[in-house]
């Protein structure tokens, strides 16, 4: 597959791509993790009940 390596040479600085990608992903992932873990559990528990909170329609019932 050495033939394919010519593609690498045609793109200047190609070797930096995977590193940028990895850094980008890791940074955003840990940032997101930090933000989410900081979120108040009471609040997320309330959010998780949203689908169950629409039982105010006129006919909602357990049909099973």
């Amino acid at each position, binding site marked *: *597959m050495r033939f394919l390596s*010519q*593609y*690498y040479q*045609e793109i200047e600085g190609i070797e930096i791509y995977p590193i*940028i990608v990895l850094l980008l992903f890791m940074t955003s992932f840990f940032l*997101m993790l930090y933000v989410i873990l900081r979120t108040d559990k009471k609040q997320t528990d309330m959010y998780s009940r949203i689908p169950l909170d629409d039982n105010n329609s006129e006919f909602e019932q357990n049909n099973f």
Partner: protein
Amino acid sequence: MEQQTFYYDNKIVRLFLNATLLWGVVAFLYGLLLALQLAFPVFNLGMEYSTFGRIRPIHTNAAIFAFVGNAIFAGAYYSMQRVLKTRMFSDLLSKINFWGWQLIIVLAALTLTLGMTTSKEYAELEWPIDILIAIVWVVFGWNMFGTIYKRRVKHIYVAIWFYIASFVAVAVLHIVNSLEVPVTLFKSYSVFAGVQDGLVQWWYGHNAVAFFLTTPFLGLMYYFLPKAANRPVFSYKLSIIHFWTLVFLYIWAGPHHLLYSSLPDWAQTLGVVFSVMLIAPSWGGMLNGLLTLRGVWDKVRENPILKFMAVAVTAYGMSTLEGPMLSLKSVNAISHFTDWTIAHVHIGAMGWNGFLTFGMAYWLIPRMYDTKLYSIKLANFHFWLGTLGILFYAIPLYWAAFTQTLMWKEFNADGMLAYPNFLETVTQIMPMYYTRIVGGTLFLLGMVVMLYNLIKTAYSGKFIAEEMASAPAREVISSSRVAGETVHSWLERRPTPFYILIALAVLVGGIVEIVPMIAIKSNVATIATVTPYTPLELQGRDVYISEGCVNCHSQLVRPFRSETERYGEYSKAGETVYDHPFLFGSRRIGPDLARTGVVGGKMYKNATWHYNHLQNPQALNAQSNMPPYPWLIESDVDVSLTEAKVRAMMSLGVPYTEDEAKMANDLYMNQANLITASLKESGINVEPTKKIVALIAYLHRLGKDITMSKQADGTTTNADSNTDKTAQQ
């Protein structure tokens, strides 16, 4: 806060649900027909409109865009109104969305039947329909965003995030992959060529699975599973983490469809790494779904809706573990081009999409008709028919895949291929193909049972078109962050920056992958002896595309000894620089055709053989499952388009001269006359304008270029392909 009364629109949900069920039957019927055709060629029915090559894209498009697509709209329109506590933004947009989508499906079925196709998998539709899809998709987005802006709640529930990500990603994928130059109203050429086209196509193809079959269904799971189980989501934090990780990672995984192809190694590796990383968010979603059922597993035993959903989520987990495994190069070397891929996608399509849709339909119909389900027993019966259907479908195909790949790769003690005749490997797996028919039939029967049950349910109740609800008006809060509010909470109530972030997360992968590939000038990889197709070969290539040959025959010899021994020299990027679109294929139901033009090569057959074989494959090989193509002898190529096709190619940078364009039909006839003369020597009289002549010319061109070497005076001669400079690098 003032309590407001409003009405949910159930009419649009019912319309989409009815369409889901109708197109579901059509998709499954077409699937069953394909299974029959593979086992018994007589089911090709002797017509060009019903051959495997044309039926296969109708089945995939019907399953993905008609069955699953309508299910997405049905579930999204129902859940969005409820979690946002408002009616949809516009009833008119809802109707345009519905009728526009159905029009697209009908046009798709018609054009694909007539052989009007781009040949790019799951993107086969021609350019006017592509434009229509873009318009209808924007209408859906407009309606969704309008609904989000007029919501009565502060927080946007996680299901809606998945819908937003799906909307953004599908819009981008569809537009980029559908960039094409029209020749006529129903014929166009992809603006990308060869490996670039392959990368763009599989960036699209893989993400059609990601953002059409997965993310919207995760949205549905996050709404309907808690509703059916009457339990909140196991972990909302996990849902957020797996949302962001999933939308960021998914878009990178496309190149795993092109492993061992002539796609650059860096792109292949990127696809593999991100595919493996995808296990984490996918399983995060699956576990979140299954753990939502904690404490109610006793209900799963008696409630068929929960049974369907539990199996759906399990199938999702199995598919998303299997997918990354298949993307490992060593596994892919075995699995690619075999029925393993087909089994894998059907675990996803029948298990994940099918069963979640069935669960959703059983849950929605009794509620919208304010009644109870007609028969729980019948629903349970459907569950077992469906489950057995999946097993009888998938297990034989895994078996078939291992059998066939091992036969392809086996060498005898003398170092020769143990099964040099491709057909031997096909006849060996026929028993598995018969069993697959049983699986498909059971799955279809289950669908019929469900239809009966749901129709009886609907008749026993009264449809509530306008469902009354009430909620307090939304509190108006400052657009900036308030004290104690986290960034994410602030973002969640500010839709616009939220959309932008989702779009960025989705797009960054595509940009990093695609831009370097597009930035490479296509002539960089040009092999000196590779020249554009002659006008006759170009027309022949379009016959090949129109008949859907790519659905059974690959044009990609991978760099394995088992493949170079069977087919010839492995495929190189430079060979396909004028291929608009690429035709690598994804499954070898028949042998690879990349080297059929190499005179003296392993795959070369003369014009007479091709003529006889295309007319009646079974006359040459009684056990062949290839459909006969007698109409290619009767039908004419539309030569009035030859010049326009050459000029369209010129506009894409294919180096035809002005004279070649002007004399396109003269060149066409000159070459065609040579083929008809050679056929005449075997006693076959055929006119030069017939499709079969163009197709033979194209088949005789494949792989020919790299066997030529350029002389100093510019002429070309035959040469051993190993002397090709490119191959030596």
